[in-house]
């Protein structure tokens, strides 16, 4: 597989040389393969959003950042990046600016010089995917509820059909079913269409179920990196920086501390199987 995102020795300081100076990222090395589903987790203020903004070409740090073959230290590359990279910001209302929902979703495609039929097709398809019906089309995006705004923002990005998706807590503010639906949507895009996906999330179950690989940030540095099983097996270290692990991992870690030999777990299905094995071949679910 080829590398889609390559970051070497990235450094980023906000408001340098003032009293508000703040080193948001330091010494970051990161590679993401094409078609990968990568999760980025970390405590509040650890630099996750900043890292996404660097990948989106919005913030410029020191060091090498190459996205889809474009070296982002060059302005002309940062300027064309938007056609390939879709970004969902942490605050959805910040993403909406047109006078109606329909126009807002159409904003990106219009800038891509598509035919008007193609624009209409994409806008309707995107709004359907996020389950916003036609009755919402003429509404001002600012009149939508928080969860609807989130969906609208997502539709605005999907309509551009990007190759890479950068998602900053895209399900925050959605109800449980909405979370499931939206995450299923992203997973499908990644698995079926090979869209490289970077997900920032505080929801460890979400991360455990969806991600191929997890990067843990802490105080602007990469604290750990690996597949979910490896990462969540180190619950003590994660707890030190204020992070929790999924329920199944916690169970596995606790059993291991009591001397049971058990595999690294992240999902409930795995947990059921392993616990069943520990109980001596019996199925985990009994009458």
């Amino acid at each position, binding site marked *: 597989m080829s590398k889609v995102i390559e970051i070497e020795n990235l450094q980023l300081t906000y408001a340098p040389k*003032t009293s508000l100076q703040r080193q948001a990222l330091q010494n970051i090395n990161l590679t993401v393969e094409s078609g990968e589903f990568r999760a980025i987790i970390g405590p509040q203020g650890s630099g996750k959003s900043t890292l996404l*903004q660097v990948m989106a070409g919005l913030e410029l740090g020191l060091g090498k950042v190459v996205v889809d073959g474009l070296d982002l230290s060059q302005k002309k590359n940062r300027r064309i990046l938007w056609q390939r990279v879709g970004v969902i910001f942490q605050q959805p209302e910040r993403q909406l600016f047109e006078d109606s929902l329909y126009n807002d979703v159409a904003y990106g495609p219009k800038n891509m010089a598509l035919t008007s039929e193609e624009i209409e097709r994409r806008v309707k398809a995107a709004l359907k995917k996020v389950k916003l019906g036609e009755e919402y089309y003429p509404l001002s995006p600012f009149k939508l509820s928080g969860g609807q705004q989130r969906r609208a923002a997502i539709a605005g990005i999907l309509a551009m059909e990007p190759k890479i998706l950068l998602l900053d807590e895209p399900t925050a503010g959605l109800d449980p079913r909405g979370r499931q639906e939206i995450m299923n949507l992203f997973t499908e895009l990644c698995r079926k269409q090979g869209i490289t996906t970077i997900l920032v999330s505080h929801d460890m179950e979400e991360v455990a179920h969806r991600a191929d690989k997890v990067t843990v940030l802490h105080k602007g540095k990469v604290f750990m990196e690996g597949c979910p099983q490896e990462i969540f097996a180190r619950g003590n270290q994660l707890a030190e920086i204020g992070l929790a692990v999924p329920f199944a991992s916690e169970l596995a870690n606790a059993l291991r501390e009591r001397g049971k030999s058990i595999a690294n777990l992240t999902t409930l299905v795995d947990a059921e199987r392993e616990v069943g094995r520990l109980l001596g071949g019996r199925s985990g679910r009994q009458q």
Partner: protein
Amino acid sequence: MARVIEYIYRDSIIHQLNPLSKLAWALGVMVLALTFNDPYYLLALLISVGLVGLTGRVMKDLSGVMKGLSIFALILVLLQVVFYHGAYREAVTLGIAMGLRMMTVVLSFLVFLSTTQYKDIILVLTEKMKLPYDYVFMFMTSLRFVPTFLNEAIQVGYAQQVRGCPIDSGNPWRKMKAYIAVALPLVLISLKKAERLAIAMETRGYGSNNRTYYKEPIISTLDYFVIFLVVVLIIGAIILRCKGLGVLH
């Protein structure tokens, strides 16, 4: 940038002074700067303001602004030289005086604002100077929101940039259109924010009763001394001026 008028937390005598005496000082500096037009007198005044800033340990943070101001002052001098009808020497002196005057006044207010917290300014203006609280609060709050507003503008710009609207594209017409596109959601966001602020304030009892204050700004001996000094300096300046010193004709 917006950062200029923000309070900078440091531990210094200047920070501990009562806002009233700092305000008196800034106003006094302004009076002095307007009294004289001899560049040497103004330079001395500017240096004294700089020393106060150094004592308040905020000069490093203000250095960026000062650089900008110096360039502005230089342009003032050049303008004087180009447009002044009279001797060349006179024009230069006058230009320098104007530049120094502007820098002195601006710097003194920057030192005042960066060493004094908004809430203390509000407190002094309402309690000591008896201005109506609502108006003072409104004014200070809108000042406070300037940096937030700029930040918001950057974020909206980002949101448009990732959907293909580069604000920094060369064509001025496109640039204009892009700025207008930023302005609209910005106004909407601000209105929403104002509404939220009003609700948040009301739920916490704003305007429901007489206000009391947790912190009473103390007027220390040092404050009396500062105010005394300012008064003496102003009287001294007026006497000097009447004797014709510090003024070029």
